[in-house]
């Protein structure tokens, strides 16, 4: 069976879903395909979750322009429309000796060229007022109050849900195997059937080069750069108030120390170029580098209190170090949105805005819909509510009175919501990304069996079919005694 669509977006990361959502403002057939079992499973899933202010991005590059615009759009529109957790906590770039101050000033100047507002250099006592646990050697910092942190899972899922609400189609577990250029349309072959599309938008993250090669575009290469992280328990006695960067030196860009939107402490990333586009494993070396680096900023940190290690891949075009966002001049109807590494998350609203501009040129005469609904409501968060609000919520639906995840106080109601969304969770990890059971200190030891049970009931599948993430990641292999009984029959 062949599906037809006007615009096909390949990749369900923050960039792909943002483009889908922005295009869904228009009278257009939109299909987004993602090879994973969920949206937000590639680069968007594992990163530092920052909305950079924009001082670091080179003002001569596309990054420099899109970062500041993205930050502004997050502030003025995205946060309100999509009810996504964003905290505008500000960022510090810290110099630990006087020699670093000129470098801070250079970054300040670059930031000014990018039109980052309210940048200043803070010194002395003020610095420690802002950040009491900072290394006592710190002498000065560039302070950027407009920097923020965001929950990338909730953001991406909200974008996908909003796109679907406005008419787009999202197809999961559809891996592109080949693309044929048929002139006025592209025939995109996927593991879930063929799709004919007038316009293909390649937002495939670390695989963007492979996708481009399918239509003969060979002029860029994505070199995955792995970054490893440690995430700490919320109740850690060491707190930081801002996203803290170190001054970049020739060897290293430095390790970031930042709170997350849920107030866990996050440190990382390391940086290591690798070949394998799927290798999200952690290494001893990478993790050691992360903790050693973070200790330079916050000397009291140890690995005590760590609840999670993870790794992500930056989808970098090493040769330019910049985003590549353009309609291909070689292949008509094919738009590359590639090389989206840091500050890609921060820039994502602006990237989508830019891509909409390109689509308008490719498909002239686009009309806006009258009934576009930009709003999404977040799933209720029992953990952040007052007792009174909780009471009302449970009155509405008693499933919100059943705590499934004790570490994070996540209720059954929230988990059901996560499964029943337009782009609903189908795996244990997809539920964790949306509503956090298993994201706490026990890492699912207690709630895991309950989440498996809820998924099995809701999806109407046996527990042995419930997956952690991808296809072969089933959690349970068979019923207890099944093989013993088999042995019995075999023997008889």
């Amino acid at each position, binding site marked *: 069976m062949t599906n037809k669509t006007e615009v096909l977006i390949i990749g369900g990361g923050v960039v792909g879903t943002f483009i889908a959502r922005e295009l869904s403002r228009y009278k257009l057939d939109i299909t987004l395909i993602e090879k994973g079992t969920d949206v937000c499973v590639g680069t968007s899933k594992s990163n530092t979750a920052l909305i950079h202010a924009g001082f670091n991005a080179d003002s001569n590059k596309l990054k420099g322009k899109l970062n500041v615009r993205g930050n502004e759009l997050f502030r003025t529109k995205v946060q309100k429309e999509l009810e996504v957790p964003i905290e505008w906590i500000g960022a510090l770039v810290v110099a630990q000796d006087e020699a670093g101050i000129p470098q801070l000033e250079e970054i300040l100047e670059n930031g000014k060229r990018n039109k980052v507002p309210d940048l200043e250099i803070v010194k002395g006592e003020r610095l420690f007022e802002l950040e009491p646990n900072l290394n006592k050697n710190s002498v000065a910092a560039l302070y950027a109050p407009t920097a923020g942190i965001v929950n990338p899972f909730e953001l991406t899922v909200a974008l996908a849900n909003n796109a679907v609400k406005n008419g787009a189609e999202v197809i999961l577990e559809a891996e592109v195997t080949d693309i044929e250029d048929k002139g006025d349309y592209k025939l995109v072959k996927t593991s879930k059937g063929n799709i004919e599309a007038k316009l293909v938008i390649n937002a495939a993250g670390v695989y963007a080069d492979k996708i481009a090669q399918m239509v003969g575009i060979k002029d860029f290469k994505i070199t995955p750069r792995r970054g490893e992280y440690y995430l700490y328990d919320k109740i850690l006695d060491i707190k930081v108030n801002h996203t803290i960067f170190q001054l970049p030196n020739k060897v290293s860009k430095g390790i970031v120390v930042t709170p997350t939107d849920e107030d866990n402490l996050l440190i990382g990333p390391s940086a290591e170029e690798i070949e394998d586009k799927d290798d999200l494993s952690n290494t001893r070396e990478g993790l050691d580098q992360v903790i050693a680096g973070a200790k330079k900023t916050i000397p009291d940190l140890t690995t005590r209190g760590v609840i999670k290690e993870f790794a992500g891949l930056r989808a970098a075009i090493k040769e330019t170090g910049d985003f590549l966002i353009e309609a291909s001049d070689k292949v008509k109807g094919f738009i590359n949105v590639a090389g989206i590494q840091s500050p890609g998350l921060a820039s994502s609203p602006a990237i989508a805005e830019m891509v909409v501009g390109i689509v308008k040129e490719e498909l002239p005469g686009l009309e806006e819909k009258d009934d576009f609904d930009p709003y999404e409501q977040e799933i209720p968060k029992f953990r952040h509510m007052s007792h009174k609000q909780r009471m009302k919520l449970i009155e509405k639906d008693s499933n919100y009175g059943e705590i499934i995840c004790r570490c994070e106080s996540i209720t059954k109601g929230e988990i059901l919501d996560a499964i029943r969304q337009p782009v609903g969770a189908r795996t244990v990890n997809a539920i964790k990304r949306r509503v956090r059971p298993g994201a706490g200190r026990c890492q699912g030891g207690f709630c895991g069996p309950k989440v498996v049970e809820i998924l099995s009931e809701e999806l109407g599948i046996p527990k042995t079919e419930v997956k952690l993430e991808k296809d072969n990641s089933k959690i349970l292999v068979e019923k*207890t*005694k099944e093989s*013993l*009984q088999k*042995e*019995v029959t075999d*023997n008889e």
Partner: protein
Amino acid sequence: MEDKVMITCVSCPMGCDLNVEVIDEEIKKVEGNRCPRGVEYAKAEYFNPTRVLPTTAKVKGGILPLVPVKTAKPIPKGLLEKAMREIAKVELEAPVKLGDIVIKNVLDTGVDVVATRDLAKK
């Protein structure tokens, strides 16, 4: 016939490693024990090692799909795996009471398999 084996004594948490020499079905020598209980243990463990087998049995219509069970007394060690397969064949009906007999005289050992908790109906 001569046999030499090593048996770890579990009479107490000390866990002495006993070197046991057996000639013609009789224990001739026990070394490595720190107390006389070691000799007794070696004897029992050499000639007739037995274990209580705790496991589960399937239940229909209960609040859980399984009920824990055990052999009411120790059974020969060599029969543990066979007993597991016998128990795997059983499916009880809820409610189950602690002490309910799940299998009478399992594998002709003279020992019953019994439930070790109450399990209510769903």
